[in-house]
């Protein structure tokens, strides 16, 4: 019974997701292409500086990349190629877009995944402890540290960590080394500082969310009942209070995961020299490299849609009263 309505719901959501993704893809394509910028803009200063006939060369470069054609023609070609699995040629990096993404997604993914795990695990643990020990010295300390964590800019924190742990103490390399095997202790070590940098803000926020959600539930009648029944405090907190507090936390954690996929990780990638999709997409925007911009936007959209769907499904397991039929 449950399986049946859930399957129908997933199919329906996937169908909507495709329509939403297509819509966002189209809007992004139009926005990127109708703007005043051109992929040839980056040539302007150098060409002018060397005394070239800028107008002629710019027209030629636009023709080379096919951006001199009517926008509907470019759009039709792009969509046709996309459905055939051809994501286009990145003219700011000189390689096929699909190859570019295949090569670089893993750098962003490992950073985001480890940062999220680090932040969620520690944030929830500290949040629970803070709530259970409300108004103790430990609670005040964690609250204070949380506010610092939320306030510190990633960029500054990353540079400070490098100066202290890499330059002064020599414990880590000053930059992320892409030559390390992905599944190795060395690679994990290389990710320690970037993960702390990206994860600190999230961790601090999760501490606050968890504490607040736990406190809400600790005051509820079912907790008093559980305690009156003589259940051990460990069970009361872990099984009853935390499970009820988990619903809003899952929403926030998964939403964060979706939103930092490309945007939030950018500064950390810059500081530690990680060639992830954040850097790739940011530079593609400035280079007017529309095949990359559109492709990365599409991936970001799909990730967010997928995360939302997963969140909705998790709700039904955390709280069986939730149904989407």
């Amino acid at each position, binding site marked *: 019974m449950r399986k049946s309505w859930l399957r129908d719901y997933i199919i329906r959501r996937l169908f909507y997701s495709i329509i939403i993704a297509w819509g966002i893809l189209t809007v992004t394509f139009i926005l990127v292409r109708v703007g005043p910028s051109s992929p040839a803009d980056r040539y302007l*200063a*150098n*060409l002018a500086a060397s005394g070239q006939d800028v107008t002629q060369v710019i027209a030629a470069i636009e023709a080379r990349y096919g951006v001199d054609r009517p926008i509907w023609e470019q759009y039709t070609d792009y969509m046709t190629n996309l459905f055939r699995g051809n994501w286009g040629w990145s003219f700011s990096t000189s390689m096929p877009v699909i190859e570019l993404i295949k090569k670089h997604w893993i750098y962003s993914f490992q950073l985001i995944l480890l940062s999220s795990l680090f932040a969620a695990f520690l944030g929830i643990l500290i949040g629970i402890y803070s709530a259970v020990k409300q108004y103790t010295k430990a609670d005040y300390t964690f609250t204070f540290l949380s506010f610092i964590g939320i306030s510190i800019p990633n960029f500054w924190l990353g540079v400070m960590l490098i100066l202290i742990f890499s330059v002064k103490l020599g414990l880590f390399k000053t930059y992320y080394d892409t030559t390390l095997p992905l599944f190795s202790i060395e690679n994990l070590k290389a990710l320690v500082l970037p993960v702390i940098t990206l994860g600190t803000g999230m961790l601090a926020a999760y501490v606050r969310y968890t504490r607040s959600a736990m406190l809400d539930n600790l005051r509820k009648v079912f907790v008093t009942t559980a305690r009156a029944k003589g259940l051990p405090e460990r069970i009361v907190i872990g099984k009853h209070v935390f499970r009820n507090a988990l619903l809003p936390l899952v929403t926030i954690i998964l939403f964060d995961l979706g939103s930092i996929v490309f945007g939030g990780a950018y500064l950390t990638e810059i500081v530690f020299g990680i060639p992830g999709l954040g850097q790739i997409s940011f530079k593609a925007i400035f280079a007017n490299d529309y095949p990359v911009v559109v492709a990365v936007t599409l991936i970001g959209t799909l990730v967010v849609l997928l995360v939302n769907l997963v969140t909705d499904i998790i709700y039904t397991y955390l709280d069986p009263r939730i149904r989407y039929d």
Partner: protein
Amino acid sequence: MRKLLVFIVLVLASSITLAGCAKSEVSDTGTTGMATVKGIFIEGQSGGDAETLNWILAADATSFSYVGHTLDSLATYDNEFNIQLRCLAKDVEVSPDGLVYTITIRDDLKWSNGSPVTAEDYVYTLKNLMFSDWLNYPYKGDWQEEVNGETVFVTPEVVDATTFTITRQTVDPEFVYTIYDLTPYPKYIAVNYEGDVEAFTQAPEFNNLTYTGNLGPYRFKEWIRNDRFVVERNPDYYLGKDVGAPYFEQYVIKIFGTSATRQAALEAGDITYTGIEPEQANKFRNLPHIKVYTVPTRGYTLLAYNQRANGWEGLKDKTVRQALSMAINKQTISQAILLGFAEPAFSFIPQTSPWFTDEGLVQYGVGSLYDKKKAAELLYHKGYGIKKEDETIKVTNKDGSPLHLILAVNTGSKPAEDIAFLVRKELLELGIEVEIKLMPWETLLRQYVMNKVPNTDQEPRYNNGPEAVSREPWDLLVIGFNTDLLQPSGSYVFFASHGGLNFMGYSNPEVDELFKRAKSKEALDKEARRQIYAELSRLLSQEQPVNFLVFHRANHGFQKNVKGIEPGINMGYNYHLWYFE
């Protein structure tokens, strides 16, 4: 290969020009003195990644520098501007009338398939690729000339397997420098893509540099975008085979997002070399494992005066520009802001250029020509000022209203920002209010530097003619320019009326004529050319189309175990002979 000789720079820092020369002693062990093949040389950069390794499509200097590790040009220079032959067997011969250039290449150059590199490859590259309509080489203008009002290409012709000629119809004494930069594509591969721009753009041989044979000290290994460009030692390098060079197993260019992390990496010993910002130079000098070389550069910072219709009307007057330049202290900029790593500039040719002369240069901003009182008097006599009761002058508009100027500068370059604030302080003492507009580089270019004729559908460019104006009004603008030290005539783009980067709208027929003469038959005589450059320098220092502020010196930080470096303006010219101790 076309290198970028003159271009706007955001942060003025000289880059190492990479090329090699064979002057080491030969040893049968494959070592030269202390030099043995070992280690990985890691260069830290934070100026962004290259666009392509298919160099004929590139417009950025980084792409050319990457390819330059695997592909030598015909010739380069040492720090004293002595020619260093690379793929040339002997220096280019120029006919007495200056029209025919005979180029003889070495006979031991090979492509990766073992076939010889011939004159045919060079001529094919010029005729079928660089001059073609289908490929649209961005710098084809370097190989064109104006003949009877028409733009035509020069004529390359094969003489024999190792010799070819290039014939011009008009004289250009500095054309030989364009020839020195030439590199070839292999005809045997390129013919497969000829006429198909998409196929050529995506050709794996060109995008992975698989054809470079023994033409460069290194061979392409890997390029991870926005991260690292890796080349490995080429044991067959034509200049290195007798001496065992190059001596690094790999040469890596590591891209950093910020200069702070790039410098931290050098301090921690994670990279071998990087450029050092002025404020960090003394700190790095005191580190026991780092050696800092301070060398002159070709870059200078200037204060541009907007002489277009949307600038303050006074800036069109030479005396007004002179007065403003007289009020800004260049010693303060070089010593207090750039901490001594710069020297006052008075024209566009730096002291390190063989064409430099200080004869007749008007030195505004130093000594007796740094004089605010005199500046105020000059402006007063032009009608821009009022005399107060105490006889002091307050500079104003002609109608007596307060003079308010807009100074635009980009963010991200602390020296440029500091210079902007110094200018404001100096001009305030004359009574001029300066409003500083700080903005990102791209915004500065789009809204303040690029211009078009109002109410037309012109595409904005850096110089769209005398009627064109920028989108936003401005009066002063802090920016950096470069001068090619061997052919300063390239600076016509900034100062000639029709120069592609003359965004200030400066126009002086005398200056235009002098730039023209620097590239004429008359200038074939070096003494005559020297006189032309001296006259140009003198005229521009007097006219002040811009306030030439300072020429920069760059700091290069190396790990101390790197040997063989010859510090100077072109310090990378022998980099294939560098080695780890």
